[in-house]
């Protein structure tokens, strides 16, 4: 296992009226974050909030190329990114104990916080296809280049870790400074992760380690 300190490239926020960030995703041009009763899109270059949708947004956020997926209470809602309309809804696998959300390979991946689990879920029916065990409380979840990464928070420590999707074994670990929380995680497909800062209401960009470097 490789272990290193996370390199924080940039901090976004705090944002007016945002008390906490519960989930993060990226649609190719904007970073979306869930702040309780809103989904907000920020321009990663200017750091400004470009637009907001009024939807319940209590935990993880994901984007499948066309729709936003957002955990609200004990359900996962499929949302039209243009209008903010809720198009469909499936039960969340953790029954409300759900935290992170990611979309990859036609499935939704849902972190179940205190159960320290990540579920692969059918986005149409909500059926759990398989479950991966982690060692820590799971916050954000993301897939990039066939790698499964997730954020953790336990006690006062947070890190971003890559795990083997078959065994749950930790392959690589990026430590965040003490007291810095990761409450949502998304890769931009390149060398950046976007992380929710939890109760501090910020979004951070963290560098993803290069392969073979």
């Amino acid at each position, binding site marked *: 296992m490789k272990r290193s300190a996370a390199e924080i490239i940039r901090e976004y926020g705090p944002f007016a009226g945002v*008390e*906490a960030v*519960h989930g993060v995703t990226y649609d190719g041009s904007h970073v979306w974050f869930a702040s*309780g*009763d809103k989904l907000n899109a920020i321009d990663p270059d200017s750091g400004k909030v470009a637009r907001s949708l009024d939807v*319940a947004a*209590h*935990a*993880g956020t994901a984007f499948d190329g066309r729709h936003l997926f957002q*955990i*609200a*209470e*004990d359900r996962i809602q499929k949302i039209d990114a243009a209008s903010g309309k809720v198009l469909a809804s499936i039960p*969340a696998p*953790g*029954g*409300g*104990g*759900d*935290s992170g959300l990611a979309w990859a390979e036609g499935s939704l991946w849902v972190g179940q*916080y*205190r159960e320290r689990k990540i579920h692969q879920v059918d986005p149409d029916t909500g059926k759990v296809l398989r479950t991966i065990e982690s060692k820590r409380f799971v*916050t954000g979840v993301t897939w990039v280049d066939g790698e499964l990464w997730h954020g953790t*928070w*336990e*006690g*006062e*420590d947070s890190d971003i870790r890559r795990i083997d999707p078959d065994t749950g074994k930790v392959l690589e670990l990026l430590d965040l400074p003490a*007291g810095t*929380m990761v*409450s949502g995680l998304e890769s931009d497909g390149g060398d950046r992760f976007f992380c929710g800062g*939890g*109760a501090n209401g910020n979004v951070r960009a963290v560098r993803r380690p290069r392969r073979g470097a």
Partner: protein
Amino acid sequence: MESLITAAARALEAGDPLGALNRVALRNDAPSLALRGIAMAQLGDLAKAKTLLRSAARAFGPREAVARARCVVAEAEIALVSRDLGWPTKTLAAARTTLEKHGDVANATHAGHIEARRLLLVGRLDEAERILAELGTSPLPPAPQVVRELVVAGIAIRRLRTKDARVALGRAAHAASLAGIPGLTAEVESTNRVLDTPAARLITHGNERPLLLEQVEELAASDALVVDTFHHSVRRRGTIVSLGTRPVLFALARVLAQAWPADVSREALMAGAFQARHVDESHRARLRVEIGRLRAKLKPVADVTATKQGFALTPRKTRQVMVLARPVEEKHAAVLAFLSDGEPWSSSALALALGTSARTVQRALDELARSNKVQSFGHGRARRWMTPPVPGFPTGLLLPGPLLKT
């Protein structure tokens, strides 16, 4: 964080405890237990709230120190509101340190305020002031600002500095209107009423009139010789003769002061000080001895002179003698004074606050209950006492909002 916990915490913060309960009622993980506890506290079921918060503190893992500390603070606040003043303060102090260390300034301040309020209730003013000083004077959000000013005002009232108290209450009222929490506004108003309600009676030349706290303060600075039934002392300005340990001497001083400038007959003095029904020679002898003792004690402020009928008080360096008495003098007035804050008290908390034994307080409460001056509810150790009519349940409860953010 967790979806349903976030939703429930948001409902609680928006003042919707039932909405919060709806979301976590059937869950028994640590954050749900804590949320249920706070919701039950806001709904007035303090016993249930306490149990839930205690289980939550146990259910949080050993590495979740901040979450556990927040549960301890919430439980301490419930203890304060239910006047359970014997609550282990070391636990609260440790929780406060943990929160400070982890940068949770809001809840650390909240913990400090709870401790200061407890000290204020039991009359340990210096310690309450020390805690306020430790917390610093940096600006606070409106709600905790109200609490700080209420503690400052409470200390000033008990120290007879009414101007300071009014200034602090003015700041508290302003902060309460910014906070927009009705319970806080009500608490500021009820503290204000204390300043506008007679705090004492002044007896002079055989007449009496009610005194506001401000007038009591003026009296302390005046030239008059004051026989003070609150402190069992005789004083003129800075010269204080304490008779707290000599009840007979104090009773004599009081009878003499109430009659001043007239004298008091030996019979009246003996009846007033010895509570003797039939006066005999031994009482006369005793009176001579006690008057001699009183004369020696009062020397710095007054003389006790013999007259044809009995004795008279002759104050030094002043032409005014006054008796400062409680607004209503009846047996157990001190117990009633504490109960009149409208909160439910346990008999052990009253004993702590009054500095007497639980047995004495229990006897007083039983007697007061027989004449319907106090009411109790609950049984055994959970039994609480209040003065009727029962006002709405706790106004003081301000459980920390961000308890479950992380």
